[in-house]
């Protein structure tokens, strides 16, 4: 089974802090994604990467950046956390073909 591991399940940070959310997958998938999930809004794509060192903005990239130095790891960075970034963050990966996503368990981030 594909395993997508997010480094933290719960995270509490202060406004203005730089925050790193880490995601690792163990199935050599080319594609990796960061989504944000908010009640009533579903999942919204922040960034994705379809190859090492490649990244593409999703629908809501403002206030975020990403890093993919190795194929298995995709990091989401909040340069200066704000309270409106309090949310559930989901990492996912997929391989070529149908592109079905495999998700991690999510990180619930609270910014105070």
């Amino acid at each position, binding site marked *: 089974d594909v395993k997508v591991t997010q480094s933290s399940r719960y995270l509490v940070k202060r406004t203005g802090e730089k925050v790193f959310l880490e995601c690792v997958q163990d199935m050599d998938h080319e594609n990796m994604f960061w989504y944000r999930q908010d009640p009533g809004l579903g999942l919204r*794509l922040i960034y994705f990467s*379809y190859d090492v060192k490649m990244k593409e903005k999703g629908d809501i990239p403002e206030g975020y950046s990403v890093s993919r130095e190795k194929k298995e790891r995709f990091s989401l960075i909040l340069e200066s956390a704000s309270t409106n970034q309090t949310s559930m963050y989901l990492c996912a990966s997929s391989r070529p073909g*149908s*592109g079905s*996503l495999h998700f991690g368990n999510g990180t619930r981030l609270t910014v105070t």
Partner: protein
Amino acid sequence: AQTVTQSQPEMSVQEAETVTLSCTYDTSESDYYLFWYKQPPSRQMILVIRQEAYKQQNATENRFSVNFQKAAKSFSLKISDSQLGDAAMYFCAYRKAGGGSNYKLTFGKGTLLTVNP
């Protein structure tokens, strides 16, 4: 931009009964993929079923089946013989066919399914 609409924020069903969740999407593409994902309270999102647009036959996975109406841009999920473990948030999703940036999925807002014993 593609949009995915789930018009039912919440649904409920009696155990052992059948329920249908609705999904419509907007696209100008002729080839694409459609998905239903399930997110139980434990929050691990898992794939329920997948449909390729070029296939006319509706996909089925055990008790889960879809009604794919390409012309109507409709993709509903039918759950037969509902079980307590089916209680979850269900998300419909779409992606274009092809590689590169086409691998990103667009999700609907979700339908919360309650299963009553």
